[in-house]
């Protein structure tokens, strides 16, 4: 006789008290397949833990975002935010969908070139651009977004030396009514720094002011803040037109649109409170169309959306190492997924679903990672079905920042696979091995031998 699936015995006291922080169970079906491929087969073949990215979902997201903006505004250009996920396969999917590259370091700039992006379609942001980086960007006719005055002077000097006109924009920070206000990047609008920087560029013989850029924050839940930002940039553009009779080519609204993850401490889940891409598009395009731009001279609208386009395209698969009970009676489950590879667990209460069928019985659980470090907590409170050792779980919405901010710490970083449009699985990043780390290390001769 076939033996039945085992579930550990459970008994819970029925309390008629207030809802607790573990919350209610919200998932009723297991996540057994991703893009038609069985989770257990993926883990069997590629190991656990494993990042899985859906190419179909990436393409669907960017097409939906383009549609949201292009139906509301005549000239729109997306630029893929490399720092959000710079795996080549991911970047190239976005480039195939027409996105330019938006980079914030020399390393990312080189990666964009390596991916075959024309220099003129690379937007170079960020506060740390070396002279060598800038020279390269100038030679490639890239769009350089100036972050501070020292950078402005450096570009001016390099452009004169190379006798080249450089296409530049300035990053503008501003009060859009949200907290915290991001004022560390770029030039401030309200105190006049931005206008001063614009005047310095307009007086320069070698710098051409082609755009205005802002990036008002991250995981923004208020589309109206973008409308305020767009009005302020339009106001700057109007002043440039009035004083210099110069039209800027583009307005870059940056990124920061929230994904559907749930921020730690949020009262409602991200799926309920995050605005849709249509709401952001409506706020931004309405503000630009209502501003003073002449009808036939509306600037190109650039968007550097990262998180909202990639978060829901990726899953992290893992397995249960063991179940324990803590001293205060709480259930704890230890997974092979640690915060070193799931960096976003510091910000989000990630949705986590068992990958195999389960019963209706659940237990309030703390999910720990495998690291021998107290900080390794994947979920502090989650109401989960009863999981046996070796069973699998799926962490949802992990596409943004995890595969760039992950750390090689205690354990090695796992493989990343992408499932293509025909449900074929491709390894797009190999797992690390001891060799990959030792290749970077050098031991001085006098430390090669020892006796114990």
């Amino acid at each position, binding site marked *: 006789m076939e*033996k*039945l*699936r*085992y*579930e*550990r*015995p*459970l*008994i*819970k*006291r*029925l309390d008629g008290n207030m809802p607790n922080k573990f919350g209610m169970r919200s998932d009723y079906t297991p996540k057994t397949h991703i893009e038609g491929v069985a989770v257990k087969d993926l883990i069997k073949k590629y190991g656990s833990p494993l990042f899985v990215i859906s190419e179909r979902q990436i393409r669907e997201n960017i097409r939906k975002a383009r549609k949201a903006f292009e139906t509301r505004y005549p000239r729109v250009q997306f630029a893929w935010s490399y720092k959000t996920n710079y795996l080549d396969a991911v970047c190239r999917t976005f480039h195939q969908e027409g996105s330019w590259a938006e980079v914030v370091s020399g390393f990312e700039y080189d990666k964009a070139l390596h991916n075959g992006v024309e220099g003129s379609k690379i937007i170079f942001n960020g506060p740390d651009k070396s002279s060598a980086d800038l020279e390269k960007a100038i030679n490639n006719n890239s769009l350089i977004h100036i972050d501070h005055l020292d950078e402005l002077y450096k570009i001016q000097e390099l452009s004169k030396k190379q006798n080249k006109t450089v296409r530049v924009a300035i990053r503008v920070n501003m009060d859009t009514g949200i907290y915290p206000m991001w004022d560390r990047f770029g030039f401030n609008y309200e105190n006049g720094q931005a206008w001063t920087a614009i005047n310095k560029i307009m007086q320069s013989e070698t710098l051409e002011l082609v755009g205005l850029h802002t990036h008002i924050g991250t995981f923004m839940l208020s589309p109206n803040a973008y409308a305020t930002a767009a009005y302020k940039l339009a106001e700057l553009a109007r002043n440039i037109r009035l004083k210099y009779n110069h039209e800027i080519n583009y307005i870059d609204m940056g990124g920061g649109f929230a994904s559907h993850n749930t921020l730690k401490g949020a009262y409602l889940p991200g799926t309920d409170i995050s605005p849709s891409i249509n709401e952001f598009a409506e706020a931004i395009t309405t503000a630009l169309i209502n501003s003073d731009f002449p009808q036939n001279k509306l600037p190109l609208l650039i968007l550097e959306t990262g998180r909202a386009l990639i978060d829901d395209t990726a899953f992290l698969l893992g397995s249960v190492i063991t179940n324990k*009970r803590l001293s205060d*009676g709480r259930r704890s489950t230890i997974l092979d997924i640690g915060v070193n590879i799931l960096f976003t667990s510091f910000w989000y209460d990630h949705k986590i679903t068992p990958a195999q069928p389960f*019963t209706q*019985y659940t237990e309030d659980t703390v999910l720990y990672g495998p690291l021998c470090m107290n900080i390794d907590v994947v979920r502090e409170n989650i109401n989960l079905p*009863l999981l*046996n*050792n070796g069973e699998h779980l799926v962490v949802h919405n992990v596409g943004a920042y995890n595969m760039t901010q992950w750390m090689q710490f205690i354990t090695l970083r796992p493989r990343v696979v992408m499932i293509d449009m025909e449900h074929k699985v491709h390894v797009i990043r190999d797992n690390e091995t001891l060799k990959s780390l030792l290749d970077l290390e050098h031991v001085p001769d006098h430390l090669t031998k020892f006796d114990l």
Partner: protein
Amino acid sequence: MKINKHIAVSDSGFVFNPVTGESFTANPMGIEIIEMLKKEQTVEEIHAAVLDKYHTDNTTVEKDVAEFFELLKNFSLIDRHETTEN
């Protein structure tokens, strides 16, 4: 190990302790073990019965059943006199 004789257990997993007035809910495996305890089966017999019926291993069953007994003790569902003797 002896379950408190006053405990009422329903097939659907509802457990009631008339002495304290407390109610509990148990999953089918929990109910099976409570029923076995009511029939005064030994711990070894319970392990064997679970292993015979379910797809699992001895280490897991021993660990899970021992933890389940701890819960029963904490909820005062196991006869205190018996617990002390054990």
